[in-house]
């Protein structure tokens, strides 16, 4: 197992390299001089020239790229102009907040989505099944930025139950902390929750018709355990595949959710940076999120092995999605 993880980590290097290249190319797509764009129309020629030199934009492209990569290897994501701080520092201040939000959403999504899908599969074609499927279809179709706004309108503006924006601090006590977390995490959880319900149902239905499920029933195992032990563990593989993809949805959705709820995370950082035309921050943060996503997917791959003993350690060549 340890060997496998190390090999997969090495497998990831090309992907991370490609990610870095993509980010580099995108930032070079900016029409005209990025320094001029960043400083806005009122900037003086001297200021633009100074920034151009500072960003190394007067260097030949290959040299810019080389310096950029070298910086990345040393953990240098550049320095923000508007914050006057290293981008890494900005990210590290906000990353934990995004993790808290994303984790809370993921937990809600798993705790509700998977059991809902299980119940739906166990009662296939019942009214309950149709209900769950309809709600989850509504969920996957949900523009979450709208849902967030509606939750604010209803629970904050009309009912006054939860704060509309901001993140609580633990100094104000747990209750305030949780109250701040509830609306954003529900907003962010909606799509993954619905997706888990759908994929759980369909993969459970596939497993339920297998012969070994009949074997379990023939042993006299109660239906509850047949479903939650024998069926679920076999159905986990597709659920895990979806989990990997949903992490991506969560990180992307966090940008929108954090904007609506003024949550001080990385998404908020990106949107603010866009407003301030601070491309260095945008570039660094996006790159960071992509690398996080690649690493999380490695984790999901490792979970595969735990869940599914049939997966061959040696022959499974990872595509490193």
């Amino acid at each position: 197992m340890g060997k496998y993880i190390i090999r997969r980590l090495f497998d990831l290097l090309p992907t991370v390299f490609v990610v870095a290249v993509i980010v580099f190319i995108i930032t070079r797509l900016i029409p005209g001089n990025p320094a001029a764009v960043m400083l806005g129309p009122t900037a003086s020629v001297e200021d633009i020239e100074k920034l151009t030199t500072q960003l190394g934009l007067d260097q030949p492209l290959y040299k810019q790229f080389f310096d950029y990569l070298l910086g990345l290897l040393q953990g240098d994501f550049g320095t923000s102009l508007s914050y006057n701080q290293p981008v890494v520092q900005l990210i590290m201040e906000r990353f934990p907040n995004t993790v808290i939000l994303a984790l809370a959403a993921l937990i809600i999504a798993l705790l509700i989505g998977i059991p809902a899908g299980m119940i739906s599969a166990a009662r296939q074609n019942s009214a309950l099944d149709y209900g769950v499927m309809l709600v989850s279809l509504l969920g996957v179709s949900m523009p979450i930025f709208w849902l967030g706004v509606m939750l604010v309108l209803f629970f904050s503006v009309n009912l006054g139950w939860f704060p509309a924006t901001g993140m609580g601090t633990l100094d104000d006590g747990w209750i305030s902390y949780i109250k701040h977390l509830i609306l954003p995490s529900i907003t962010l959880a909606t799509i993954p929750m619905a997706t888990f319900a759908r994929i759980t149902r369909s993969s459970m239905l596939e497993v339920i018709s297998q012969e070994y499920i009949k074997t379990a029933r023939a042993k006299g195992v109660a239906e509850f355990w047949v479903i939650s032990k024998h069926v679920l563990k076999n159905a986990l593989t597709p659920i895990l595949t979806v989990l990997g993809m949903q992490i991506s949805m969560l990180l992307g959705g966090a940008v929108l959710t954090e904007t609506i709820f003024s949550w001080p995370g990385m998404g908020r950082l990106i949107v603010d940076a866009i407003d301030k035309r601070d491309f260095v921050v945008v570039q660094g943060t996006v790159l960071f999120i992509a690398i996080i996503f690649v690493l999380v997917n490695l984790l999901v791959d490792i979970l595969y092995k735990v869940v599914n003993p049939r997966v061959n350690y040696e022959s499974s060549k990872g595509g490193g999605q």
Partner: protein
Amino acid sequence: MSENLLSIEGLDVEFRSSSSTVKAVNGVNLTLKKKETLGIVGESGSGKSVTATALMQLIPSPPGKISSGKILFNGTDLLTLSKKEMRAIRGNEIAMIFQDPMTSLNPVFTVGNQIIEAIRQHKKLSKKEARLEAIEMLKTVGIPEPEKRIDMYPHEFSGGMRQRAMIAIALSCNPKLLIADEPTTALDVTVQAQILELMKDLQESNDTSIIMITHDLGVVWEMCDNIIVMYAGTTVESGSVETIFKNPLHPYTWGLLESQITKDVQHNEKLPAIPGSPPDLRKPVPGCPFVDRCPYSAEICHTKKPEYIEVEPGHFAACHFQTATSRLEKKEGMFVD
């Protein structure tokens, strides 16, 4: 005469869909005595597996439904039991093994885990005790190095080994009745023989009764005391193996025997070559279900369902012409072993 362990009376099983109802089992009767082995033979779709599944009450419902009949096991009608009472019987007093050992073991749990689960389902044992018993079971079914094998996953076992493991699961609680649904069909010929031998040995030492569902008459001859021939959801003939093999009365049984003999008992092949195909069970026919494929059918076969009557002691058949000796002459004696 020892008393019946099991008797099924007038069992009907239906599968409903929005557009049609299929009567998969239609008025099946059978009895099984203690320590006896009963073979149920027939083509796929004849209702033999459905009968066995109904007996375990594992018919998926919906769409399946046991619409009438009695299943008397040790004097109790299983159809009147609650779910919980039935669970206490499943795996404990009646156990089942299936056709394909590749798919009948759960791939994500170790073999040991699956045997222990069966044991602990019905016996109050600690995990440790159950594990020791599981190792013992693996030894009993002839799996070498059971202490090591117990922690392996099904995909690390060969087909024959898996079927042995299935038998270990099935017999772990000393069931009175073992239902074996085509237990050797998916196996190599040599392994088939070993598995059958194993089942026989275990039957002897445990006093188990066996229902052997198969389309392989060789297996029936080898293993069974009595035999039931099913066709299109009904029993068309039943009796002791000797009687049926020597004096088959139903044209379908002839067809079965004939095709097996001409094929020199090809174990791995599907049941063969009786021209035609079984009737569409969605459309019940007024007459004999075999009429379209029967070389001897007459007017009456199209209009009237033949009754299932005792032609000689212990030998039942459902054919209008079972006593028409003229027709039998050319066939008689042909299947004597």
